[in-house]
């Protein structure tokens, strides 16, 4: 579980996050949503520790990140997996080598055991051995996301962060990636935080949703409660499209 309390973050004079609090439980797909520029990426990067926060606390199962030294942060990060918006696979390594990378860096297993684990992770995300020796530039965007998920789960993380996991994907592939993240989250009881503004994902897998508006927490709940919200900013964001407006009408 990750618990954020009264988080404030500014860049020079410009404050971008105001007093954000939220509880991200394990085994659930926790989503941070908001319009572009609302501060959700800054919030996620602050939770991971890529940004130093001004005040507040970020507790990873009781361990407060802002109090940690760099060495401790690095140790904690070994329990973290992350899926980046652009996949962030290493160009110079093959699919297999990408998944092997965290294992070779931190695992004390033999090479054969590491390879077995990497193959297990790749097969878990439905990749066949035909793709194992290909380079990231030789595979599709959807496959790159799968490889990135496989790499993220290689070390059995306790926490999984996903930054816009569906960006650049067609709706069908996006849905498959969403389902995959949800399955992995539940299967391994991971604390997953997903940063997204894709409403299909939110409706599909959002067990806990934190809505950020202009750097402030404007609403929290789940994908069932979202239809009954009376927060104007949230309604403007969620029901921006005609399709979702109709869905709301039908629901209400």
């Amino acid at each position, binding site marked *: 579980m990750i618990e954020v309390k009264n988080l404030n973050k500014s860049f020079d004079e410009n404050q971008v996050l105001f007093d954000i609090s939220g509880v991200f439980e394990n085994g659930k797909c926790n989503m941070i949503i908001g319009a572009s520029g609302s501060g959700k990426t800054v919030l996620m990067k602050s939770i991971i520790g890529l940004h130093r926060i001004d005040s507040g606390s970020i507790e990873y199962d009781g361990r407060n990140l802002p109090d940690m030294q760099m060495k401790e942060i690095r140790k904690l*990060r070994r329990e*973290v997996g992350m899926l*980046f918006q652009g996949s962030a696979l*290493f160009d110079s390594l093959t699919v297999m080598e990408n998944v092997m990378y965290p294992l*070779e*860096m*931190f695992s004390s297993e033999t090479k054969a055991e590491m390879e077995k684990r990497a193959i297990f992770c790749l097969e878990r995300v439905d990749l066949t051995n035909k793709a194992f020796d290909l380079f990231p530039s030789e595979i599709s965007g959807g496959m790159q996301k799968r490889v990135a998920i496989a790499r993220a789960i290689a070390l059995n993380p306790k926490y999984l962060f996903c930054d816009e996991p569906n960006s650049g994907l067609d709706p069908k592939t996006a849905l498959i990636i969403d389902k995959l993240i949800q399955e992995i989250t539940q299967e391994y009881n991971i604390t997953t935080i997903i940063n997204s503004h894709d409403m299909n994902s939110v409706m599909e897998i959002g067990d806990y949703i934190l809505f950020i508006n202009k750097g402030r927490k404007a609403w929290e709940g789940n994908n069932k409660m979202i239809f009954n919200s009376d927060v104007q900013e949230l309604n403007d964001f969620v029901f921006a499209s005609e399709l979702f407006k109709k869905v709301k009408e039908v629901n209400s």
Partner: protein
Amino acid sequence: MNYLYQTGQYAMLMHKVFTKPDRWKMFWRQFPKEVEKLGLASLPIVIIISIFIGAILTIQTKLNTENPLLPTYSTGLVTRDTLLLEFSSTIMCLILAGKVGSNIASEIGTMRITEQIDAIEIMGVNSANYLILPKITAFIVMMPFLVIFSMAIGLVGGYLVGMFSDIITVADYLLGIQYAFVPYYIFYSVVKSLVFAFIISSVASYYGYFAYGGALDVGKASTNAVVNSSILILFFNLLITNLMLN
């Protein structure tokens, strides 16, 4: 003020780079790749430039010192000392700053803007140490070989002028390049090249590591890396020459 900030940022980056690698195995896997990419891959350009400069130096020296009072071996001597003292260390390093520096800055810069460096950091790996240390050490290890190789090839260039033209005789040239030879000049050149290798690889890594934005910004980082490492090479050339030859 910005210059001071960058100097501090560079110093902090070097502090991150020169720490014990998380896994020596990974360092030793990267090291030969960098030796090949930064060192061995630079050999063709070193050969081409050195052989031509050696030949041109010989021709220019001979044509500009047409004086019966000067001994016949003076052309070889001037060619040798120019190659040993300045060309093969300083000028060659300025050329390599362009080739290797832009290579390092653009590679690391692209990794930065495509979030590959963030991915390494998120895994709990010291990204600066993992990416930069093998590059700096590999280039420092290879640079003396490149410099000595450049000296030898440059001298061969001059020899070819003697062989295929009537500007200078091979005998005069060979006498010149052996006359009053000071082995210390090679030591001086190697010391300079080690410092320059560190400057090129570390400055380029710095600009790549702190690149942000898009492809255009990686290009800017690459240009800044080449320009600033060239200026630093010239400054340290002056400093080391004063210290070692004065």
